[in-house]
């Protein structure tokens, strides 16, 4: 009986093999992979049309455009986004759809916008009710949706809150929208300390003592600002409560009291004092009491900057003959030299991400900004042939660096990405602006 099945079995097996291996049926699981190691753009293409009036009537108030323009300006400031020009939009600019069920995503992806922000604004008197949504136009998916209430005067705060949500979606960090920058300006004829928003808006004079005020330093909780002032004809450190605008401690020991730097997470700061002779770095309480001397080697040590974990400082020392950057573990005292190029490296600032330090280096009479990796110790110059560039300081998310530059003649404050691109002026006030110091992100 079995032999009757042998022939048909062989024929059918061959038939099966032929059929199943036919290219129309075989699902070919073998394929090759190509590596793409570098995106063509480091900016996310996004579209932000003018906000729509959800009250039904035309968006006749300038607030609709003001707020949507502010969002463009704020997102572009981060250098993460490329906001596509409104002239390219393929929708009715007067009344674009704002909800997922009505937005025609293909119209946005066609013009190259991977993402879309829509806003629906209801104005009643001075009150604002704003709905904001972030969409992925390729997938046709809503990514973030928030509603805000406030007054017209709150518009910056409202827009920056949603910008924080957008940046958090892409980077995991809330970004820089709740940060400020302190700097020195000579607009009044004296070197006074000013503060402004992260984007240069709302500059405000902080000191007004008609003396020389330099080296502002924010505490990590944003409550305190320390700075050096020549109010008593010698440099002393003043500590001020930012909220209450009350005077705090004054560190006015014999000799120099300069370059304060707050230890992250603590009411403690490092500063250079010379009461014992040479300029050395000391650890002090926020009330001005000396905890201990941190540096003991020969030479002058100054400009400390803390690692984000508060365990190390980087500082400038001329112990090798010329000023160079050194890194010291404050617990063990172990110190290593970080920079070896050039002859004059100063003003270090430790990245909030902990992996790099930016500093200025004077070469052939002009200063340039560098970054150097803590591990690879590979210095990278970020500015070149653009005046004198000094005092670099990191944004709280570690994505941007603010610095002062004389590239336009007078010293102004500029901001660039941490890899040196998109160098743009932050603000221009009367006089010269210098010595910027970026604050941490304020929780509120």
């Amino acid at each position, binding site marked *: 009986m079995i032999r009757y099945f042998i022939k048909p079995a062989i024929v059918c097996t061959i038939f099966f093999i032929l059929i199943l291996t036919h290219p129309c049926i075989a699902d070919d699981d073998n*394929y090759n992979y*190509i590596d793409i190691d570098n995106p063509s753009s480091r900016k996310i293409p996004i579209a932000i049309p003018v906000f729509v009036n959800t009250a039904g009537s035309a968006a006749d108030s300038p607030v609709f455009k003001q707020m949507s323009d502010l969002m463009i300006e704020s997102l572009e400031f981060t250098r993460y986004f490329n906001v596509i020009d409104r002239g390219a939009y393929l929708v009715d600019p007067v009344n674009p759809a704002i909800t997922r069920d009505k937005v025609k995503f293909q119209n946005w992806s066609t013009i190259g916008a991977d993402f879309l922000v829509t806003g629906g604004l209801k104005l009643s008197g001075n009150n604002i009710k704003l709905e904001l949504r972030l969409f992925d136009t390729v997938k046709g998916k809503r990514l973030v949706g928030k509603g805000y209430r406030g007054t017209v005067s709150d518009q910056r705060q409202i827009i920056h809150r949603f910008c924080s949500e957008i940046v958090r979606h892409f980077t995991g960090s809330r970004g820089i929208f709740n940060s400020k920058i302190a700097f020195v300006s000579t607009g009044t004829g004296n070197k006074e300390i000013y503060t402004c928003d992260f984007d240069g808006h709302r500059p405000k004079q902080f000191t007004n003592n008609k003396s020389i005020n330099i080296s502002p330093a924010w505490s990590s909780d944003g409550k305190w600002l320390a700075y050096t002032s020549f109010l008593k004809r010698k440099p002393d450190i003043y500590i001020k409560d930012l909220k209450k605008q009350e005077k705090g401690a004054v560190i006015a020991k014999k000799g120099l009291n300069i370059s304060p730097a707050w230890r992250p997470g603590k009411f403690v700061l490092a500063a250079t004092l010379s009461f014992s002779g040479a300029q050395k770095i000391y650890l002090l309480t926020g009330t001005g009491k000396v905890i201990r001397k941190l540096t003991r080697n020969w030479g002058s040590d100054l400009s400390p900057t803390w690692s984000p974990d508060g365990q190390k400082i980087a500082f400038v020392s001329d112990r090798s003959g010329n000023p160079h950057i050194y890194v010291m573990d404050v617990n063990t005292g172990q110190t290593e030299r970080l920079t070896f190029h050039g002859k004059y490296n100063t003003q270090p600032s430790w990245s909030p991400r902990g992996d790099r330090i930016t500093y200025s280096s004077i070469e052939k009479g002009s200063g340039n900004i560098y970054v150097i990796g803590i591990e690879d110790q*590979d210095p990278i110059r970020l500015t070149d042939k653009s005046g004198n560039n000094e005092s670099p300081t990191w944004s709280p998310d570690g994505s941007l660096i603010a610095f002062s530059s004389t590239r336009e003649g007078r010293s102004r404050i500029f901001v660039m990405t941490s890899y040196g691109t998109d160098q743009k002026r932050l603000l221009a006030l009367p006089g010269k602006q210098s010595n910027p110091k970026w604050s941490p992100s304020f929780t509120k």
Partner: protein
Amino acid sequence: MKHTNASRLITGNQTGSMVIYIIFSVLCHAALMAAVITVPALTGPKKIRMKDVVSVSLVSIPAPKSESKTVYRPPKKQPKKKILKKPPEKKKIKKQDKKKIEISTNEIKDAISKLKKEVDEQDPSDLEETLKDLKKEVENQDQDDVIERLKNEVANSRKNGTGTGVGNQSSGGIMDIYAAEISFQIQDNWAYTGEASSLVSTLGLKIAPNGEIVDIWFDRKSGNRHLDNSAYNAIMKSNPLPPLPRAYRKPFYKIGFNFGTKGVKK
């Protein structure tokens, strides 16, 4: 009589055999149909299916030029440019080793631009002369020698397992160029803001002869949502891709992409 009985017996045997053939054939057809319906679903890779394949006519947005061209980087070790390498570990069992395509997208770009320049610069009369020369050469060549040489080349490429890199898929050289072309197009549509890292997002796609992406799936996610999304969007923004070369005979072309950020400036 005996003869008649024998004939009947033979006829009876043949009829029985035919019945068995028919039953077997019916069973096999049923099994085949079941296999055709179920096998691809069982053996196919676990795919994240798209809801819709959006046909987009691309409007290329020029990449924003960096304002500053002042960045100076002291000479440092250049990261090795891996254009193509072995696929990452996958859950799917691979039957064959993947072959590497030894052409980088930059090289292709350069080569194309050089060729374009050369073609532009060439005098048409030169071209005609070149063609005539080529024809003569071909005519003069011993056909047997040519066939022998081609046979050797094919045998060597099979033996070495390198070839030009389209794995088990036919039309190797043409498909290498096609792969490089689409990878260039996809890279051109890839926007990612993150820092350099060792994360890699690996996607596979299935391309129809007209260049339309008919399926896309993650072979391996990077663990970074933004990187994965940006890679997915880069591919979908490139849809439709250029049509498959005519020499490619299969109904679909499959290819994978490893999106990494090693080349991102620090």
